[in-house]
């Protein structure tokens, strides 16, 4: 494309067009770059920074077709983000070479979806091909459920890049998720037919700058080999790999097992992790887990432990009688701990996430309710709290205020009763500036405004003074410290808020700067009345 020099016309002025580009949505940016060469050139950096190349089926076929000029185009424009779904095409011709050679000088972030039939060869090529700028890779291996036609998979005839593969010092994050062997309650569907395509020792030597490794649902044997190989590499020299995730998607997880945890604990004597994200199973030996954490106690800053609740294999709550001095972020499944008293001692804790693992039903979480003496388990330093499962309503918010007196951000499911408690606790939480409410078990205008729905219906349309006079409970307007508010409704006959929540509640929040209302029944008129710069209404 010929280069066009700017003219005196403002229509061909970089500065003017760049200002306008900031206002365009991505779909309009696509049209903008089709108008003329100058607009195309001005918009290219914006487009490239916002765009992700998505290749699958036909588009992949076009790219790897030697006759197409598409490959040249991708070589010239420095797109950094790619999502690629590999089908049989790459394995049946030289397409794989064309694909990687086309994008190898630009690609930095890759998400790759590949089916089990082709995974081993394709991943081998990916791992051995020289992609010098690649920083982050996410690979999803999916089970191939179809029936193979004869000779479709002739990937074996491809020549490999050879043993003489250069070291790649750009890759920092590698995630491999195997989604092929989902099992439910012990019933295994198909088994794990995928194994890592190159020796792990070769992987670690090639990607010497890797700082984050995540293995999700891969075979236990692969995890064992990974840990053994990493141990070899780490014993010889310092490695930057400090963030490790080993997770399983099954209700009865196979990784990490005790052998894995034990090996990790051993290698942690000379390589300390800063972040661990682990799946815990009913068969996990807690002393082995404790050893692993204890060996990393001097460096561990982020700890995430999750567990899928199992209907007939009950698990004792984990009790970790250790002190994790530096952990600032803890994420833990609700099924792993019965109360806050069971959490390890973490004096530096700033952020606590209590998460769900089974989204099919929402049993009330009893962690807060079961905490007997909240004064004794005070997490005075915690400023950010996210509780994903619903809580038992009775006095939970009051207990939260005692346990976490310094909260600045809170994300929680609330009913009317809990909302009233929360508005009362505004006195305690003087620094609470960000609140994300998800409706639960009946959240209505009554909860947000503190005025009963009957009064609102009767007085609402006529006199705000009368309505406010009959307010029985504190309104959200009491939480004066709020600067950011998100209300996320799962609207049904029990959960619904309307304009009254704006007029008799949200408008009283004088320090508010950001508002997001999701699936509410608030009208555009009421929404416009909220005097903040950043507000979003989501259907």
């Amino acid at each position, binding site marked *: *494309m*010929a280069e*066009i020099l700017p003219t005196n*016309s*403002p*229509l061909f*002025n970089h*500065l*003017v067009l760049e*200002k*306008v580009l*900031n*206002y*365009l*949505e*991505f779909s*309009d940016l*696509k*049209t*903008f*770059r*089709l*108008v*003329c*060469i100058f*607009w*195309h050139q001005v918009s290219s950096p914006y*487009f490239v*920074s*916002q*765009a*992700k*190349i*998505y*290749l699958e089926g036909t*588009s992949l076929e*076009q790219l790897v077709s030697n006759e197409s*000029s*598409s490959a040249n*185009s*991708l070589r010239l*424009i420095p*797109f950094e*983000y790619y*999502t690629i779904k590999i089908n049989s095409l790459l394995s049946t011709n030289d397409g794989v070479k064309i694909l990687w050679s086309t994008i190898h000088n630009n690609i930095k972030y890759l998400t790759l979806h590949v089916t089990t039939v082709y995974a081993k060869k394709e991943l081998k090529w990916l791992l051995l091909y020289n992609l010098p700028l690649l920083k982050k890779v996410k690979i999803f291996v999916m089970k191939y459920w179809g029936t193979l036609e004869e000779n479709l998979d002739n990937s074996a005839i491809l020549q490999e890049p050879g043993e003489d593969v250069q070291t790649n010092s750009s890759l920092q994050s590698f995630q491999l998720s195997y989604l092929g062997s989902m099992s439910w309650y012990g019933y295994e569907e198909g088994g794990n037919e995928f194994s890592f395509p190159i020796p792990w020792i070769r992987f670690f030597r090639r990607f010497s700058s890797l700082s984050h490794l995540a293995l999700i649902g891969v075979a236990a044997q692969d995890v064992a080999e990974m840990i053994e190989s990493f141990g070899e590499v780490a014993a010889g020299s310092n490695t930057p790999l400090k963030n490790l995730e080993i997770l399983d998607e099954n209700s009865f997880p196979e990784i990490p097992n005790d052998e894995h945890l034990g090996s990790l604990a051993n290698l942690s004597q000379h390589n300390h992790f800063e972040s661990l994200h682990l799946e815990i199973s009913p068969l996990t030996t807690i002393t082995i887990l404790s050893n692993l954490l204890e060996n990393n106690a001097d460096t561990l800053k982020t700890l995430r432990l999750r567990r899928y609740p199992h209907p007939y294999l009950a698990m004792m709550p984990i009790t970790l009688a250790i002190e994790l001095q530096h952990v600032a972020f803890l994420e833990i499944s609700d099924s792993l701990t019965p109360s806050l008293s069971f959490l390890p001692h973490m004096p530096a804790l700033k952020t606590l996430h209590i998460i769900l693992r089974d989204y099919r039903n929402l049993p009330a979480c009893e962690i807060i309710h079961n905490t007997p003496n909240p004064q004794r388990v005070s997490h005075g330093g915690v400023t950010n709290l996210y509780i994903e499962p619903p809580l038992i309503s009775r006095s939970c918010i009051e207990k939260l205020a005692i346990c976490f007196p310094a909260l600045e951000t809170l994300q929680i499911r609330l009913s009317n009763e809990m909302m009233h408690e929360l508005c009362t606790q505004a006195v305690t939480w003087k620094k609470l500036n960000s609140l994300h409410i998800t409706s639960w078990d009946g959240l209505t205008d009554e909860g947000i405004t503190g005025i009963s729905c009957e009064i609102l219906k009767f007085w609402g349309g006529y006199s705000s003074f009368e309505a406010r006079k009959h307010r029985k409970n504190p309104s959200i307007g009491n939480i004066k410290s709020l600067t950011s508010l998100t209300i996320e409704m799962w609207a049904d006959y029990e959960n619904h808020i309307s304009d009254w929540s704006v007029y008799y509640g949200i408008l009283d929040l004088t320090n508010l700067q950001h508002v997001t209302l999701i699936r509410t029944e608030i009208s555009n008129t009421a929404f416009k009345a909220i005097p903040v*710069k*950043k507000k979003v209404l989501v259907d």
Partner: protein
Amino acid sequence: MALVRVISSDGAAFLVSQRLAKRSGKLKTEIETFRKSSDNSEAQPEIRIVTIRAEILRLVLQWLQQHQNDPVLPANQNEQDGRGDAEMGQSQWDRDFLAPMDLGIVMELILAANHLEVKGLLDITCKLVESKITGRTVDEIRTAFKLKSDFKGNEEEQTRLENRWCVEN
């Protein structure tokens, strides 16, 4: 009332109050620089804007006059996404002000508002141009802005192909 003489690129002089002029970040800086370098505190500053012609400068000053009592928006407001909230500051007067303008003039105003650091005017003019692009086809945009395609060979087709491959990140 302290005054300042603002002179356009084509030599037209506008005498405006310093209070009004200081609502432009650029003019405020120029006035303060003049004050520091001048021995006579009563002297009237004279500022030449070599990049803005009289017709455009008059429009900027007219907009400033109308909005002289608005709160001054910080220049870095919403800097994260590089855009302001034009809807918040756009009044019926603004809509009437922009309505008769040719798009070329609006784009000159963008340039002027950016140079003179008048955030509110920059927001509403950019928003207006954006509204002429949003949801329109390429041909409609070319018609609105009186532009012609100058792509050679299959360059346009190639760009359409790239667009098909691209999704928002």
